[in-house]
């Protein structure tokens, strides 16, 4: 366990006591989606940057946004489908750094009736965690992109765990939308399961860290330190060829089935570090890209999912060094 050693060099954001900061995640932390935060925490990267970060999970994106707006937390991570509508509405939130460049949502279906592209979605009954949530928005984007009538897809709220696969098997659902590592786990446990992005990754979804402008004004150094810590944590995982050390560090503080299973965890992390975290490789880790940002806005705007506005107002480009 040489996690501390990995974080041997770096900036010196503050002197004296560590600065407290609360980060809210829109899902429970026990998902590899949050590997960067967990690594920054377990690997001592936050500490090294003079931060005392509390990671608090809440139930869903809206609560995460509201926690930040209300001051209960300072930073959260949001997809553009979720962050841009309130931004257009004039809610005071600003994107400070890009964590993921595309969606990692997966559709799980049965081999007898596989869903492997957006076109396959037509006429299906699809399960998802909640109505009107991130998954449904992504689905609508993908359907619009592929020219499929969104009305033809029946949406049902279900638990997004492996148990729901029984509903697929029983034919009550054609498929359901889950996160990457859940998909890996389902695939590993069920030979008859088919997992695929089904076009949900086709649209440029950008997942960014957000904070209020007020907080940015007041403590820019803290935000920078936070981003720097995450960046180093991600870099560490990218550099860790066989991911063994990564898993060891993560497991030193976190424990959940997908993390405990070498095969699932490595597969999920591999996908993340080769695609989602780095995108097309044109921007440095965590660096916001104005083009990508406005591009994402155009698509959402074009699909009628956000009103007209000026996306350049909602983003800060110079917080990641």
């Amino acid at each position, binding site marked *: 366990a040489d996690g501390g050693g990995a974080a041997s060099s770096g900036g010196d954001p503050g002197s004296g006591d560590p600065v407290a900061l609360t980060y809210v995640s829109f899902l429970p932390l026990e998902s590899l989606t949050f590997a960067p935060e967990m690594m920054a925490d377990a690997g001592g990267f936050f500490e090294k940057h003079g931060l005392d970060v509390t990671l608090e999970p809440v139930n*869903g*994106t*809206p609560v995460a*946004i*509201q926690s930040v*707006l*209300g001051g209960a937390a300072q930073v959260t991570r949001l997809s553009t489908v*979720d962050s841009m*509508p*309130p931004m257009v*509405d004039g*809610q005071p939130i600003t994107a400070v750094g890009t964590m993921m460049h595309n969606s990692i949502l997966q559709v799980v279906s049965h081999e007898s009736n596989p869903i492997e592209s957006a076109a396959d979605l037509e006429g299906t009954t699809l399960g998802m965690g*909640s*109505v*009107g*949530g*991130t998954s*449904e928005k992504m689905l609508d984007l993908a359907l619009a992109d592929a020219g499929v009538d969104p009305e033809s897809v029946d*949406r*049902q*709220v*279900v*638990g997004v*765990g492996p*148990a*729901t696969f*029984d*509903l697929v098997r*029983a034919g*009550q659902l054609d498929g359901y939308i889950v996160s990457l590592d859940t998909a890996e786990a389902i695939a590993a446990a069920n030979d008859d399961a088919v997992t695929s992005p089904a076009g949900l990754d086709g649209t440029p979804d950008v997942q960014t860290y957000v904070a209020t402008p007020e907080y940015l004004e007041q403590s820019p150094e803290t935000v920078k330190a936070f981003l720097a810590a995450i960046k180093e944590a991600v870099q560490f995982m990218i550099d860790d060829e066989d991911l063994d050390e990564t898993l060891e560090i993560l497991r030193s503080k976190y424990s959940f089935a997908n993390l405990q299973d070498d095969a699932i965890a490595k597969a999920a992390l591999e996908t993340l570090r080769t695609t989602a975290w780095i995108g097309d490789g044109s921007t440095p880790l965590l660096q916001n890209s104005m083009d990508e940002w406005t591009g994402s806005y155009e698509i959402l705007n074009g699909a009628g999912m956000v009103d007209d506005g000026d996306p350049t107002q909602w983003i800060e480009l110079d917080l990641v060094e």
Partner: protein
Amino acid sequence: MNRRKLMRILPWVTTPGLVVLLLVAWQLAVTIGGVNSLIFPSPLDVSVAGVQMLGEPDTWENVGLTVTAIVTGFLIAVVTGVLVGVVLGKIPWLEVSLRPLIVISQVVPKVAFVPLFVIWFGFGITSKIVLATLLAFFPVMLNVLLGVRSIERGQREVMQSLNANRIQTFSQLEMRGIMPYLFAGMEVAIVLATIGAIVGEYIGGNRGLGAMVVTAMNALDSPRMFAIIGLLSVIGLGLYLIVNESKRFFIPWHESVYTQRELAVA
């Protein structure tokens, strides 16, 4: 006499008065206090959203679904709660044996069983009814149990001396003696049935007012969300008042009913 009339009219004055007061305070908190409108939209925004929402035919369909789920769940809970309560109230050894299981069925987090619910009952209204029943059952049963146990010994002895059979004792004595208790239980139960049905709509399917709340929340449309919640509250309150008022017809003889009347006089 005059006061008695006053008591009848009073709630129609004070309650809206209080509501208006609350709304004004809320509006002030939002406009002056600077509460974020996404967290707590102003009453004005909410009413605009509300009016719009009431214009959508979908809303009324969802109201129908939710009310059906609540009422059905409530009625099933009352019937089973009375039966189980009376039986357990009269057979202590059975009660003593079953009570732990009943309690566990109540405290157990239902969320774990949602997948099972969906598999057994599908995405339709059934699983909502089941949840509403599950939640509403307990207070009814417990109060009925207490009621059966609280029946005066003297009254029981009257029935015994008349050689009344079980059914007669139930219909002439127990059923009536437990009424005040049953009503207290039903007042809690209708509230819990409402909660149960709405929770059921959150976690499965895509219809009903509960699902509408979630949709609005996910769309970050706070005014609409609060409007739906307002509608839900009115429905819940209405159902509650129906239960509460029906007391006057079913147990006019009970202290809790007639002392209230007399307090207005004496």
